[in-house]
């Protein structure tokens, strides 16, 4: 088991930097998820740690040792590929034993280790089958068993669940966490699926355009996003454009585009006169029906669409000048009708003001 650090790591293809000055510290035994949209550099970062891509600059350390120039086969890393990359001409047993044979273990030890892994990944009896006789989920578990067979110091996973259907994916997430906890192996997992990231990660690294946007626990990222990008990428969010009127301690007052003055949580880069975007989670709205008129700090709108989802109700509320806002209310409460006039309010701490506001509406 080992910690991993990336120090100023970049990868430039031609003139385009795929990964730009990334610094990361992954703790021993941690489950870290690299999250971001496609093309954000998360897979390139993973492949650099694996040794499949050579960094243009920067240093990669595993367990304190500089491995930047070390070939992939000497890094003792396990990796699960997006397409599983199982060897089609080998049985499941031979696939799992591959890394052990390369390490010249004796056949008795290999046999014992293969059955241990088949038990760990819950695939007993599959030893003599071939990859094309297995379902996607089973192939995925074989790929995991093969990667773990030689007790690697680090486990890398590149969107391994992307090809599975939703139910199987959720089951595999649970399975993956169980195996990872049982072994205590440092794991780096790449995905573009924020729900998957939230459900798996000890910590998430959100990447965008080759840079790290924010690193933190799932809770950190959801509650305290460092940028509008993170707020938008992790969970659902509404943006309201406005201008800062004044800042008083932790609270600032913001004049929205329609003239309504509301309160928001002030961030370091908020100063009077700055254009901002207020980020508001759908579940943070308080909804009051049929207002006689907007009270201070409220915005008014009309319910344009309603989706009753059981545990929650989603309303799309059309406000003056803005795109419809997504509002989430508990499903147990009273249900409002389409066409009804409502007033929306929120606690100032739930409205985060990000500098540079021009776009409103649901993110």
């Amino acid at each position, binding site marked *: 088991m080992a910690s991993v650090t990336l120090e100023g790591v970049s990868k430039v293809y031609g003139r385009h930097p795929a990964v730009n000055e990334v610094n990361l510290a992954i703790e021993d035994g941690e489950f870290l998820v690299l999250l971001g949209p496609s093309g954000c550099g998360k897979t390139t970062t993973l492949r650099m740690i*694996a*040794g*499949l891509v050579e960094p243009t600059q920067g240093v990669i350390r595993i367990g304190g040792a500089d491995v930047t120039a070390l*070939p*992939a*086969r000497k*890094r*003792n*890393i*396990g*990796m699960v*590929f*997006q*397409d599983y*990359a199982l*060897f*089609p*001409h080998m049985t499941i047993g031979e696939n799992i034993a*591959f*890394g052990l044979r*390369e*390490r010249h273990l004796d056949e008795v030890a290999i046999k014992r280790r293969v059955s241990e892994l088949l038990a760990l990944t819950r695939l007993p009896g599959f030893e003599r089958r*071939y990859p*094309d*006789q297995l379902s996607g989920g089973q192939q995925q578990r074989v790929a995991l068993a*093969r*990667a773990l067979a*030689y007790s690697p110091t680090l486990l890398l996973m590149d969107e391994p669940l992307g090809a599975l259907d939703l139910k199987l994916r959720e089951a595999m997430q649970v399975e993956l966490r169980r195996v990872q906890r049982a072994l205590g192996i440092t794991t780096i997992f790449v995905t573009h699926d924020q729900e998957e990231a939230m459900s798996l990660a000890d910590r998430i690294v959100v990447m965008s355009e080759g840079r790290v946007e924010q690193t933190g626990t799932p809770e950190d990222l959801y509650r305290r996003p460092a940028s509008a990008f993170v707020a938008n990428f992790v969970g659902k969010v509404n943006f309201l454009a406005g201008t800062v009127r004044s800042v008083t301690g932790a609270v600032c007052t913001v004049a929205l585009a329609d003239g309504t003055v509301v309160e928001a949580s002030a961030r370091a880069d908020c100063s009077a006169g700055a254009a901002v975007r207020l980020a508001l989670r759908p579940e943070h709205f308080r909804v009051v029906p049929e207002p006689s008129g907007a009270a201070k700090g409220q915005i008014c709108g009309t319910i344009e669409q309603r989706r009753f989802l059981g545990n929650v109700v989603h309303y799309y509320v059309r406000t003056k000048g803005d795109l419809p806002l997504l509002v989430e209310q508990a499903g147990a409460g009273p249900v409002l009708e389409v066409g009804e006039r409502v007033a929306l309010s929120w606690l100032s701490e739930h409205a985060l003001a990000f500098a540079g506001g021009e776009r409103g509406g649901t993110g």
Partner: protein
Amino acid sequence: MARDIVKRELTGAARWRLFLWPPLLLSAALLILPQASFVWMSLHKNLGMGLVSPGLVPDNYLRVLSDPFYLGSLWLTFRLSLTATAIGLAAAFPTAYLLARARSRWISFLIVLLLISSFVTIVVKVLGLSLVLGQEGVVNQFLEWIGIVAEPLRMLNDETGVVIGLVQYTLPFLVMLLFSVIQTIPASLEEAAELHGATRLSTFRRILLPLALPGVIAGALMTFNLNMGAFTSAVLLGGGKVLTLPVVIQRKIFLDVDYPLAACLATLLVVMVFLFNVAAALALRRTRHPLRTP
């Protein structure tokens, strides 16, 4: 009613199938008639002046199989073909691998060049080779210039020249065939092997080669068969001194006017090539098909 429609459709399909018969019969005729005629011819006795005996006799076969000259010629043909096939494979595999794995827009251009070069008639290719490989040729000038050899190497009018000629002729076919095979092997398999601790050699031996094996064997057989029947490179680059079976057959026909013996040698060549291919196919069947389907 429904049955009528089905019947009509079947006869329709059957009618279209009739169009397959003429080309099939033509191909079969062109393949079988000449072969059958020289097998038939090989069972007659030469009476000289292009005349043959009316009765069927095994004399030619008895003569060929007991004469060290003909057996030596067969062995030489086999040996040169095998050598040229081995060299061709060794040269083609890395080239095909590089082309299949490179991510450059020049690759398709290079493949087209390869395709065009395979269309060039063998006489022109051999002429080019004889200029390049001659005593005053570019290769010898270069070798002398870098000081590896003191005197020009003899690469023409002997076995070396013939093997070089055979390799040159078959290389484009081999590269194109192996290129299409290697392209179907995902690069991630090699990456997985490397990450799981395999050296390049081990990745080649345990992953790449087993997966490419059907293509390698098909390519090897194709090349071997072409080499066994190669006449032009043998006669032009061998300078009349490398007497492979096709060269001997040609001499029997045009110099000795011994049609039955020539036919007998041709039959022998065809049978040897056929047996070799069948043996290879049987050997391949015993090893499990690498890209197997359940």
